[in-house]
């Protein structure tokens, strides 16, 4: 009886060990996406964002924003000051995003013409940000547990070894039916991402154009979103990036929204 038990243990050991070993070498999709989500990017960051919108005729519009982000533990606070075009100058937007699962972001917008700070709902994540090809959801950090992930393959992209991960939303009402991400091994940067619409057709492609190491953090400084169905693109370029600069907590208040960049 004991001998049989020992045999079964040995058999199980030899069957399971290679699987475990393989699992350690080839992480499951969730692990890859969790590492992308958890990739450190500093406690605070300020930068100037230039967003160039190009339509199907090649006409371009440029939006410029000065933004500040600070991780305050349970909450990440972000404030954006719109610099151009002229008719939105001095508008500011503030977002408080919480770690607590299920807690919605708090958002406010300051409209200088009305001299009023208005609370807005953060529910419309599928809205496009300032007429760009990025939705508010695309710009945020989607939690990996919101999707189920599968590694499709491993391949090189732009001379970087990547995992190719397919992510399918658990919520069927989500705006994309699936996304496919190319994640650089060991850097945990999403180098490319394809977004598929509700009919399963390719809708948009996000391509990272430039990334670099700033203060030991891998930071994406330029990316481009192309809507392949409507043939327009948005290029997002971060300049004048400062990380762990010690942004004060009082930067993220109504006072600063109204005061603007002084």
């Amino acid at each position, binding site marked *: 009886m004991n001998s049989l038990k020992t045999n079964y243990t040995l058999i199980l050991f030899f069957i399971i060990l290679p699987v475990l070993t393989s699992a350690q070498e080839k992480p499951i999709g969730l692990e890859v996406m969790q590492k992308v989500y958890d990739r450190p990017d500093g406690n605070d960051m300020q930068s100037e964002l230039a967003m160039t919108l190009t339509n199907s005729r090649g006409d371009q519009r440029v939006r410029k924003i000065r933004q500040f982000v600070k991780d305050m533990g349970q909450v990440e606070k972000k404030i954006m000051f719109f610099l151009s075009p*002229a*008719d939105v100058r001095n508008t500011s937007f503030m977002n408080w995003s919480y770690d607590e699962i299920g807690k919605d972001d708090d958002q406010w917008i300051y409209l200088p*013409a009305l001299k009023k700070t208005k609370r807005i*709902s953060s529910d419309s994540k599928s809205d496009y940000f300032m007429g760009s090809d990025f939705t508010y959801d695309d710009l945020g950090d989607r939690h990996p547990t919101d999707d189920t992930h599968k590694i499709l393959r491993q391949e090189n992209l732009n001379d970087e070894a990547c995992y190719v991960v397919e992510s399918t939303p658990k919520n069927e009402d989500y705006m994309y039916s699936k996304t496919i991400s190319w994640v650089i091994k060991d850097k945990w940067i999403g180098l490319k991402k394809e977004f598929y619409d509700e009919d399963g057709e390719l809708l948009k492609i996000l391509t990272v154009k430039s990334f670099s190491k700033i203060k030991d953090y891998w930071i994406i400084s330029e990316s481009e979103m192309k809507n392949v169905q409507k043939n327009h693109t948005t290029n997002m370029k971060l300049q004048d990036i400062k990380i762990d600069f010690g942004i004060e907590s*009082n930067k993220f208040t109504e006072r600063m929204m109204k*005061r603007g960049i*002084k």
Partner: protein
Amino acid sequence: MRMKINWVFMLVLPVVLTAQEINLNGYVRQYTGALLQSGNEYSIVQNTLNLNIEQNRNKVALKANPYIYQYPSKEMEFAVREAYMDIFFESVDVRIGKQQIIWGKADGVFITDIISPKDLSEFLLRDFSEIRMGVTGAKLSWYKNDNTFEFVWLPVFSPTIMPAADGIWFPRLKYTVPATVNAPQDVTASLENSEAFAKFSSMRSLIDYELMAGFAWDDDPAMHLIKQVDPQTMQLTGLTVNPQYHRLALGGGSFSTTMGPLVLRGEGAYYHGKYFNTADPKYSKAVVQKNYLHYLLGLEHTLWNWKLSGQFIQQAILDYEKTIDQDENENTITLLARRDFLRETLTLELFSYIGLNNNDALIRPRLYYDLSDGFELQLGANIFTGDAGSFGQYDENDMVYAKVKYSF
């Protein structure tokens, strides 16, 4: 002489700005409106130059907002909407000079938002940034975490600007006999006649709220009437209307919060001792003082990419007497529907005030199109329905308009 000074100012301004590295932005706008009745007369043909001049020097800043309204057929208006200096301390800001001060959470309704008086030259049709006038005074803001305490002192009273008496926006007079309307009696500029306001506000994850109080002047004058009676027949033969400003104390508050996809907001104020017109002969000048409540509840939601917003507003006169001209409860709703198209270059909007007491309304469909960044074309209409009430009185003033605006 005044015109000459204006042009000298405009010519010298660019030189001064370059020398001092002052930020200059603003807009140029052409605005033409035509009535749908009265042989399609133009209700307005206006060219606007609006400038924002700003300079920031670390702990201090200045802003000036001069503007010009130029009309082909009447005298040009040149004025300064704001001209103030800021001083920034660690947790206190002080703003001194002419400034717009906007309080409250309501859209398009003035409940606790009573510090900056209104310019009603064109009723409520101008942009709200142009309706609210600057007031001369000092504002102190003290910040503690996400809380703010504000104190405002206005040494000089500024009343509402009423439409020209011979213009199409002058309110319809309800008098049944010939009336002579005199100019409002000025409030003497003195320390005793100054206004003071205080506000505590807090912006938190759960809710934003404001609590305010003020000792002010009512921006709108009470219409004191002197009756002329035929001594033989004892019939009323005429009226002399003497508009007078009165002191007004008020306290109120507002809030805004989200409930999932909904934004809920409310605002209310208690006005102590507001004057109302009355037909009761026991009041010699046909005015009576009553306390008064003004409040609203509003909801905002986005549905199928349409931003939808509605507000219910009630004005309630306390200890009401049936002879008072205004209804005991006057109810209004506002509705807004707005949607962007073509990557936010085209916007469709429908905004309405609907008066429930008189079944009247102001319906404002608008279309905005950005020809390029900062260059906007706006087409719209202002439709007044009903026979009486705040909006029905302008039933003859339905209009269509076009605005072209270049921002820089």
